């Protein structure tokens, strides 16, 4: 963070104008390989001496269980589910992300507010309301959008996830019971919405139709450019706690 900025009003009680760490978001639809790339990036960054914190949607202590329970029962409306996700994000932002940035760490987050916005917009929620509620979100240093076509996504989802997921197919709101057809319809709409908000939020598009290796190659260059200034500023929290990473870096 060179300068700390929020999309709306800052997190209540937050007063700093500078945080030494970097917040890097990896966005993209289901099955595009976000978690794989983050795992690779984390190892690579640690090997270069950066302390890394990885986080992702629905990983807060506070709200993750509630979201899972709600999804099992399919009992919550879209607005309530959105507020659950917002609570989850607020909790992680205040308890994980900001403290890590304060300590000079590189924070890699698997999805951020953009997935929430896209999901809500596809389901017809009030786009302005969603943005206002999420105004407490810290503006990241970089947002990498892994962009892949449906033709490339489908084989990955089938081979790696073992099939189409109920929620990833929009079964909660689309008509009909055909999982594959709904998957195609839902993911097509998600991709269109990601595309529609890419400019508004300044996504850096990464062509994710390529191999894992090629995607990682590009991400590594881009992420490297984001984190390199940290070393010059002496703001890096060294990953000293991880001697293996140091050896790997040699």
């Amino acid at each position, binding site marked *: 963070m060179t300068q700390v900025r929020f999309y*709306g*009003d800052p*997190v*209540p*009680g937050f007063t700093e104008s500078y945080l030494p760490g970097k917040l890097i978001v990896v966005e993209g639809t289901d099955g595009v390989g976000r978690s794989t790339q983050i795992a690779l990036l984390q190892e690579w960054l640690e090997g270069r001496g950066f302390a890394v914190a990885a986080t992702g949607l629905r990983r807060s*202590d*506070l*709200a993750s*269980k*509630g979201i899972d*329970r*709600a999804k099992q*029962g399919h*009992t*919550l*409306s*879209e*607005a*309530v589910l959105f*507020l*659950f996700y*917002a*609570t989850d994000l*607020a*909790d992680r932002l*205040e*308890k994980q992300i900001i403290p890590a940035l304060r300590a000079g760490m590189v924070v890699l987050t698997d999805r951020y507010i953009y997935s929430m916005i896209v999901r809500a917009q596809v*389901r*017809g*929620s*009030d*786009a*302005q*309301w969603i943005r*206002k*509620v999420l*105004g*407490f979100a810290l503006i990241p240093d970089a947002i990498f959008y892994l962009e892949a076509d449906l033709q490339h996504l489908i084989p990955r989802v089938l081979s790696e996830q073992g099939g189409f997921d109920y929620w990833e197919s929009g079964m909660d*709101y689309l*008509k009909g019971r055909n999982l594959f057809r709904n998957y195609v319809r839902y993911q097509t709409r998600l991709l269109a919405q990601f595309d529609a908000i890419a400019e508004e939020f300044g996504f850096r598009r990464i062509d994710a139709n390529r191999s894992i290796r090629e995607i990682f190659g590009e991400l590594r260059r881009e992420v490297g450019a984001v984190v390199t200034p940290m070393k010059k500023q002496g703001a890096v929290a060294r990953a000293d706690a991880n001697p293996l990473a140091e050896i790997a870096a040699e």
Partner: protein
Amino acid sequence: MGSAFRPFDTTVRICYNQPSPKGKVKHMSKALRRVHYPGKLIIVEGIDGSGKSTQLDLLHKWLMSENYLVAFSEWNSSPLVRRITKVGKKKKSLTPLSFSLIHAADFMDRLERQIIPALEAGAIVLADRYVYTAFARDVARGVTPEWVRDVYSNALQPTLPIYFRVPLEESLKRILVGRPELKYYEAGLDLHLAGDPYESFKLFQTRILEQYDSIVEEFGLSVIDATQPLVKQQDQMRALVKPYLDGALKISPRAWRDVLTEESLLGRYLEEIGANKPAENGDDK
């Protein structure tokens, strides 16, 4: 909300993702419209110890005795959401921001599952605390007034919002009698205003009271002086409510009674099915 939130109007919802009659959710730009419900929404507000719940309870019983169809909804009572709130409170892990958001989730859940369906059915819905509680409390905790109003911007405008005004000293006297143990968030201990729970509670309540004062102005809440005798407050409350009862839906909760009289029956087997119990209706407290 601002000017769209006029008091004493028919219940109106600024609606953005209301399903169309066929059940299809439409995009906001097409579906943005005002929806009127046949029911009435009467809500009470006030700080802890203002006696608002007691007064609402008395009103509830009176309306029931008059055979009105009444539904009741209470702040922070949605089962799914309450679990999270409970854990967060127990671990003391809620921040002003997550505290505000999780209560908004609770409100939205109750709005969509209890309040709106009952209003659509034509009931008188009584709510113990409403969005103004969030406006007062969350701002006292440090979120901005604009943001919390945005969060609740799709709430319903109540038919009649009533505020029970009580000086801090009076409410403290009522609550702190017997030195009860104050809970962490209830006392506002998360704000570190004071180490002592009682001192913290006083400072926190002072802040909330200040917020309520401006909310009463901003949204035109009807004010009842909560230092008056209970009976007098209830009289005033009923006087406020009466103009809205015209045409409100009535039920005949014990219609079997007429049959018994006409047919000279004793109702022996009605007792077995529990129909003969003293009148107690849709109260889900």
